[in-house]
């Protein structure tokens, strides 16, 4: 639906276009430098960061070159050193006659010392090169412009991501710069099979998108599917991978994330090695991985670095946390308002005593407390970090205490909401899902007790079984049961025992292709 609206808006925009607004047309470059200048000035009118510089040199000032770039985008020192100085030096030193035709080849081959030179054959390409940070040289008399990559290093340094903290393993996280990110990946997989496919998306933003996979490990069909879905995107702007995620997800009407994302290099690399496909986008440190399965919510990068026993235990714990964070308040409400017969005698006395004098029904109480918690959480996220911490302390301690003392909430409810909250933080990818699902369960529990909860749980399970992420059933490896993949699900086997890659991600034969990991395994055992 949104796509339809967007398309509609997009059409509107195009209708409004007139001469003042630059449109993508394949107009050729004019041969005459003055015409180029004129055209560029209209295109970049009112762009104060657009700079153009004329170089006139050679015998009889016969050579006119126009250098166009965006201020601040290019490294001026490099531009002067590698581009302008050589040109000026060359043409002032030589006394040879230069005909216009050869100038272009000469400059390209002999003069400019920069490595990144590309040709721009049309106005569209030239403009694109300028706005993406290259310096573009227009040479009088030539129909081809030269784009020289003299981008100044931009953005922040590689640092540890806040969202995914790991105790062990690499602390490098992705940054906003696409090429830095690509380097970070390439650094870890030194193999020409690692492919980066570049695309531009967004009619206004022209954002660089990169599809990354390891050829021979990733499933070709899925790669093709990813390509198809990304190319289908018709959008003005791609500001974050989140935009792409919403376009390429299999099912728009699900709460569950069908596309994974990560900010950590080592995690992404391991996903690539499992046969997943990554989608990088310029301007955001978040990298998408597809296909994404439910089981990934309880996997962390640390697991693989640690001893398998601890990791397996932690995974079971995380699964438990997932259940607790979705079901606990609902179970409590069902227990307290429906199934008194189930509660053991001593507990029922405690429960009833704690409920004494509370004016609200357990359901209302639970909703109020959970709402309060969610508000606090949101406030804590939005606030500056230092204030956020203070806020969470105020919220957790003062509010909880006070609401119990005021007789609005029972002790037990505070405990339950606290446990629920803690558990919901354990599985970060599903944190928002569990929040909503928790409410659904809570509402149904208030009306139908355990029956409602179990029926809803079954419906949620059916929903999960229906979901597919790029053709792979979301609940793999549990259903359809893939025995070989269970080694990396709830129970994690030691890394040397993982001799095959996830079978679910292949349609074909895994044994033949399982080279890399197997070699790794062999290496480790050899080292030992």
């Amino acid at each position, binding site marked *: 639906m949104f796509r339809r609206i967007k398309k509609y808006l997009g059409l509107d925009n195009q209708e409004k276009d007139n001469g003042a607004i630059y449109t993508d047309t394949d107009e050729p470059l004019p041969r005459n430098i003055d015409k180029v200048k004129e055209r560029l000035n209209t295109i970049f009118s009112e762009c104060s960061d657009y700079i153009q510089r004329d170089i006139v040199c050679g015998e009889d000032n016969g050579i006119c070159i126009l250098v166009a770039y965006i201020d601040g985008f290019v490294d001026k020192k490099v531009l002067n050193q590698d581009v302008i100085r050589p040109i000026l030096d060359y043409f002032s030193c030589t006394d040879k006659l230069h005909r216009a035709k050869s100038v272009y080849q000469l400059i390209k081959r002999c003069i400019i010392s920069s490595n990144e030179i590309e040709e721009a054959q049309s106005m569209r390409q030239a403009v694109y090169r300028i706005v993406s940070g290259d310096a573009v040289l227009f040479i009088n008399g030539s129909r081809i412009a030269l784009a020289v990559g003299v981008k100044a290093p931009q953005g922040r340094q590689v640092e540890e991501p806040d969202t995914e903290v790991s105790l062990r393993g690499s602390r490098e996280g992705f940054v906003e710069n696409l090429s830095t990110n690509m380097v970070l990946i390439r650094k870890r997989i030194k193999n020409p099979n690692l492919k980066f496919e570049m695309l531009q998306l967004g009619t206004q933003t022209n954002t660089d998108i990169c599809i990354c996979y390891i050829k021979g490990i990733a499933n070709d069909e899925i790669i093709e599917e990813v390509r198809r879905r990304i190319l289908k995107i018709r959008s003005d702007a791609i500001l974050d991978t989140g935009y792409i995620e919403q376009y390429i997800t299999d099912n728009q*009407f*699900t709460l569950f994330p069908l596309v994974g994302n990560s900010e950590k290099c080592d995690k992404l690399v391991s996903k690539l090695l499992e046969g997943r496909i990554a989608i990088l986008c310029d301007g955001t440190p978040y990298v998408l991985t597809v296909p994404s399965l439910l089981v990934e919510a309880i996997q962390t990068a640390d697991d693989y670095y640690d001893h398998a026993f601890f990791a397996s235990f932690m995974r079971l714990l995380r699964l438990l946390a997932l259940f607790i964070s979705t079901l606990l308040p609902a179970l409590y409400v069902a227990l*307290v*308002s*429906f199934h*008194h*017969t189930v509660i053991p*005698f001593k507990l*029922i*006395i*405690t*429960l*009833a*005593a704690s*409920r*004494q*004098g*509370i004016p609200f*029904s*357990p359901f209302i109480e639970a909703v109020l407390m959970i709402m309060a918690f969610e508000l606090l959480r949101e406030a804590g996220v939005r606030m500056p970090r230092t204030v956020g911490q203070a806020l969470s302390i105020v919220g957790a301690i003062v509010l909880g205490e006070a609401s119990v003392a005021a007789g609005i909430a029972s002790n037990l409810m505070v405990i339950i909401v606290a446990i629920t909250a803690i558990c919901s933080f354990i599985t970060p990818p599903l944190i928002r899902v569990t929040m909503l699902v928790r409410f659904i369960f809570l*509402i*149904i529990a*208030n*009306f*139908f*007790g355990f029956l409602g909860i179990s029926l809803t749980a079954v419906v949620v399970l059916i929903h999960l079984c229906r979901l597919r992420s790029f053709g792979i059933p979301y609940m793999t490896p549990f259903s359809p049961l893939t025995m070989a993949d269970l080694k990396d699900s709830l129970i994690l086997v030691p890394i040397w025992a993982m001799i095959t890659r996830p079978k679910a991600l292949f349609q074909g034969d895994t044994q033949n292709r399982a080279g890399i990991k197997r070699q790794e395994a062999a290496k480790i055992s050899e080292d030992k």
Partner: protein
Amino acid sequence: MKISKLAILFMLSILLPGCWDNTDLTDINIVTALGIDKDEDGKIIVTVQVAEPAAVQLTSSTHGGGGGSAQIKPVYVKSYKGETIYDALISMKSIIDKRLFLSTTQVLILGERFCKDGINETLDYLHRDYQANYLADVLVARGATPEQILKIQPDMDTIPAMYIKGTAENTAIRAKVERKMLIELFKDIKNECRQATIGQITRLDDKTVKTEGTAVFMNGKLVGWLDQYQTRGYLFVTDKVKHTTVSCSVNNSKISVEIIQSSGKKNVIFKNGEPAKLSIQMRLEGNISEYIGKETLNSPEDIRIIEKKISQEVKKEINMALTKAQKDYSSDIFGFGELVHKYYPQYWKKVMDKWNDIFSRLPVDVWVDIKIRQTGLIKSPMKKDE
């Protein structure tokens, strides 16, 4: 789209009618004990003991301090008359504030008069109601009405029902009372091959009760009682003894033996298609837990003598119980009829109705074998060395 459709439907189906079975915990009365009796006119008197959770918590946390002067009582006891149990319970709503919640019933106390009139049919409600607690302990009140027993205010526990349950549990370990859960009582009632027995409870003063002895039923009617020793004999036969202490005297010294394992096997021996006699075989294992006397205790022969004495004691108790059941009450509480039913179904069909008479006429063979294993931390009894 499908999801939104389902969501609308869910909301519709939920919001239109409202919620039916949703009851807050604060809107129920937690019944801890239930007493059932009959008055002279044959009406049922139901007594409930209801716990006040807040007060229970308060008293148990400040137990012994006794600071608060105007404390709420942790439990209250109310009685009401009605035609049936359910009728009485429902009518009771006119004098209490909330719905009675029976699932927490820990103890069910039956009145003597009620039991004499027969319990087989009248307990139907407790079986039928979905909230009934099948694991509640059942006891028969002797010499007092259930109401009097439930109104005690014990020092040891804030909730009298828990106190009663505790005493029953304690005594059952000592094998001096038959501990019967409601479900087992129902099984007994339903099973025509054996007669029901229920533990007995008596009131000592307004703070204590005593659970000892057993009520014997015949076709659902209370016919008599077994005292504590007979009860133990009965429990030995039915193989329900866990730990108990048997005492006896040997040559002026007194010995207590703790039974650590007991297995009883009963049998009906048939001759010519007719039951000839009943046989009971007991295998016990025990440790000496006390020995007051002058003899030394260090040879296997000494142990042998004690074993013999103890086995005689056990045999005596079993015989007492058997005599009571056969001669006084002629009620097959041991379940010999079950054996006949299982292994001689043809014969059972013929004698089903008069089995209890046949049972009371049959001679009994009791065989007890006891092995004493350990003697505790010391071997010979405490005395001055000579």
